[in-house]
């Protein structure tokens, strides 16, 4: 007698607690007593935060001319005891936060300049990702045109500027290599667009850089890279400091071309934060690389100088550097040489972040196996060739996340310039707004607004650095 089962039992569904949402809740929220307690505690925290802020956010007022008007609107709508956010203040002072005291009729200049910043950065940010760079330039072009439409200006100007943005989009899409031209021209365009005045100054400064090339070409076969570059820089400096002024004046009288000049004390708000942040980081990166190489060098003197500079700068607070810019620099420059406070601050902030970048790049250099430089030596490359072709491409790749986080730190630190009298968005503009009789007594809204903008910018940058880390595959796993 034999019993053989002919049909199998149908599989039973898993217990309720072992599938679906319940399983997730069990495993992720209530897996142990400790976890359950933590879940309940954090639930309470979230609940109390929402309970505190939700009515305040829901009762927000967007249209009012003063804080008292805001409060009366809230009291009329939600009862006398209701609290509410008064975002109307941001609407009223929006332009001041973005541009400081920049003349409203030329708001198009910083807007265009900000749009072009991304056009100039696209070929660097997305070096081998054409679609990424087109997307970036497209979004920025659309936003810039929108911004220009909102700013005051004539239709002719608007059409011209929109055309510029559309042309750069077209270039990004079909001839991405030519975007690098925008990258090279951008610093000069920035100076001219933001400060205005004659176009000849920035153009001739650019011509000075163009002078370096023939001098370098003439000298480099015989004397090598360092001497040739130095020679080029000397010739260019002669041009900049001796001849350029006369030539620019002559050209300006012959062919007057220029836009309205804007004084530095009109700059403020996020315009100033971005100006200082972007220019400092872009100038400080090459200096930082040189300092890092100097620190690695086996020439005792150069190493000592680099280490001394880096350790000194990293050992003092940024605030003292800024006070140096405003108080001490006048002692170290020849008598009666005065220049712009923004420029002085940019120089000192640049030196400051150069030291930090140097340490980041040094980390990248240290991460390279020694075999790389030995292989370069074995191939017969000289020092600069080895650095340019073998060492730096790899070391910089490793140090990109560090460089981005240096930049995030630097961008946050631009708020400190308010201590030397510049109108930064955080203390400068906010205290002006809070001192206004209409908005006296407002405190959450302006700080939340400024914090939100900083958050978006910094969080975006850290996400970008994560994207790069993934793309470049720096962790060898």
């Amino acid at each position, binding site marked *: 007698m034999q019993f053989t089962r002919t049909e199998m039992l149908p599989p039973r569904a898993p217990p309720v607690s072992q599938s679906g949402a319940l399983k997730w809740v069990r*495993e*992720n*929220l209530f*897996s142990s007593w400790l*976890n359950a307690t*933590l*879940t309940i505690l*954090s*639930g309470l*925290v*979230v609940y109390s935060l929402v309970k505190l802020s939700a009515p305040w956010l829901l009762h927000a007022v967007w249209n009012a001319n003063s804080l008292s008007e805001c409060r009366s609107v809230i009291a009329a709508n939600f009862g006398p005891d209701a609290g509410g956010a008064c975002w109307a203040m941001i609407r009223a002072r929006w332009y001041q936060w973005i541009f400081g005291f920049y003349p409203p009729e030329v708001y198009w200049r910083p807007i265009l300049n900000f749009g072009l910043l991304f056009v100039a950065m696209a070929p660097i940010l997305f070096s081998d990702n054409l679609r990424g760079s087109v997307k970036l330039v497209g979004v920025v072009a659309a936003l810039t045109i929108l911004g220009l439409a909102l700013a005051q200006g004539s239709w002719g100007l608007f059409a011209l500027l929109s055309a510029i943005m559309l042309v750069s989009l077209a270039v990004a899409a079909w001839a991405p290599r030519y975007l690098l031209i925008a990258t090279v021209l951008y610093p000069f365009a920035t100076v001219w667009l933001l400060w205005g005045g004659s176009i000849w100054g920035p153009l001739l400064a650019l011509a000075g850089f163009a002078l370096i090339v023939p001098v370098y070409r003439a000298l480099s076969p015989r004397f090598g890279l360092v001497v040739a570059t130095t020679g080029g820089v000397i010739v260019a400096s002669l041009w900049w400091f001796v001849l350029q002024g006369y030539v620019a004046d002559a050209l300006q009288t012959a062919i007057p071309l220029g836009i309205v000049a804007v004084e530095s004390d009109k700059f403020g708000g996020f315009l100033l934060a971005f100006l200082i942040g972007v220019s400092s980081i872009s100038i400080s990166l090459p200096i930082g690389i040189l300092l890092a190489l100097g620190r690695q060098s*086996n*020439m*005792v*003197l*150069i190493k000592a*100088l680099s280490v001394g500079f880096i*350790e*000194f700068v*990293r*050992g*003092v*607070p*940024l*605030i*003292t550097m800024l*006070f*140096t810019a405003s*108080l*001490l620099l*006048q*002692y*170290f*420059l*020849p*008598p009666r040489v005065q220049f712009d406070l923004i420029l002085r601050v940019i120089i000192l902030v640049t030196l400051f972040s150069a030291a930090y970048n140097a340490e980041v790049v040094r980390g990248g250099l240290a991460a390279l196996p020694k075999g790389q430089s030995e292989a370069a030596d074995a191939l017969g490359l000289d020092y600069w060739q080895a650095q340019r072709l073998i060492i730096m491409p790899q070391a910089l790749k490793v140090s990109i996340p560090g460089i981005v986080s240096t930049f*995030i730190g630097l961008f*946050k*630190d631009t*708020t*400190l310039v308010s*201590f030397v009298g510049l109108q930064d968005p*955080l*203390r400068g503009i906010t205290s002006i707004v809070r001192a206004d009789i209409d908005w006296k*007594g407002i*405190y*959450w809204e302006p*700080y939340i607004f*400024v*914090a939100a903008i*900083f*958050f978006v910018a*910094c*969080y975006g940058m*850290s996400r970008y650095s994560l994207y790069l880390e993934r793309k470049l595959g720096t962790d060898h796993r």
Partner: protein
Amino acid sequence: MSGATDLPKPAFRLSSLIYDTRYRFITIQVIVLILALLFTAWLVENVRSNLALKGKDIDFAFLWRRGGYDIGQHLIPYTNDSTHGRAAMVGLINTLVVAVLASILSTVLGVFLGVLRLSKNWIISRLVGVYVEIFRNVPLLLWIVLVAVVFSETAPAPKDFKLVNGVAKASMSLWDSVAITNRSTNVPFPLLDRPLPAIVTPWFTLPTSLLAILALIAGSIWAVLRLSRRATAVQEATGMRPVTWWQSLAILFAPMLAALYALGFHLDYPALKGFNFQGGLSFDHAFTSLTLALTLYYAAITAEIVRSGIQAISRGQTEASFALGLRPGRTMSLIILPQALRVIIPPMISQWVSLTKDTSLGIAVSYLDLRGTLGGITLNQTGRELECMLLMMLIYLIISLIISALANVYNTSVKLKER
């Protein structure tokens, strides 16, 4: 038979200084030295002629002249008759107080948050993640200013604590012990009725009672450690660990309680007298907001350091530890954290250094630290920018270098000993 022979080294000629890599580095260094000296000479000459133009000189004698300004928070005796040098000293101490306090608090909070960030609990790890991202991506200065503004705008004025017709507009928190007003935070302060006689020397006063209590605590901890070592010895010999927790508790607390009772320990509560709170310990909002903002901000950064340090430990370590039968808590404390510490400590060092430097942001809330006294009021009163700024930078530099040096010594001691 042929063999590789060294090429004969060419003799030194003048042109070797440029073309021969063996000698070129001397040339380069000499040129750099000359350039550096020229640059320094140029700076010195500029400073000299600028000083001459303004009719000033370099003179540190102002440090021994009367300061003439008050500093609210001073841990060493100070009046407005004290010298500028003493004021700078008070400022330096204030800087260090905030730096040490915020470092300790932010490290404790940050380690806690970093561990929670890695928790398997979904909601808590998200919550901590949001906290970290919000605090990391917004300037520290904003937190300092915001905390200070919220304190001064929302806290009630001292007069609101007064009973009017039996009702006060504001009341003290934590069982009537802490009063937060728009001027300061007032907390109870421990006092002794029968303190030990203090030893007074011409330079400083020795707080004998405090030292005695500290010595007592140290002694108790030593005794507890001995007890636990003996328990371990018994466990190793017999396999049974004697129950010692009540003995440890007794050793830790009984002598201290007895000593505090003998010295007449009591708390001095702040109380409203006239227009402001008297008694207890009063913390200026400048101090509180600076410490609080630094703590919260650097806790977020520490949490990230701790998280990445723990994640840097290979998963095999956890698995091996589970295979040995260790529970998750012990795995963390015995296996993961000791290894993660090596990854965590170097970035922590630089966090402490930058926290110390960031105490100079106290300028935003008028906290009179080193920058506020030496680099602020003294600088403005005496007009000696060069001397004040250089001295201040030097002091900050020395503090930073000392922290890095101390921390590096510690770092070497926990580093993996490779053979």
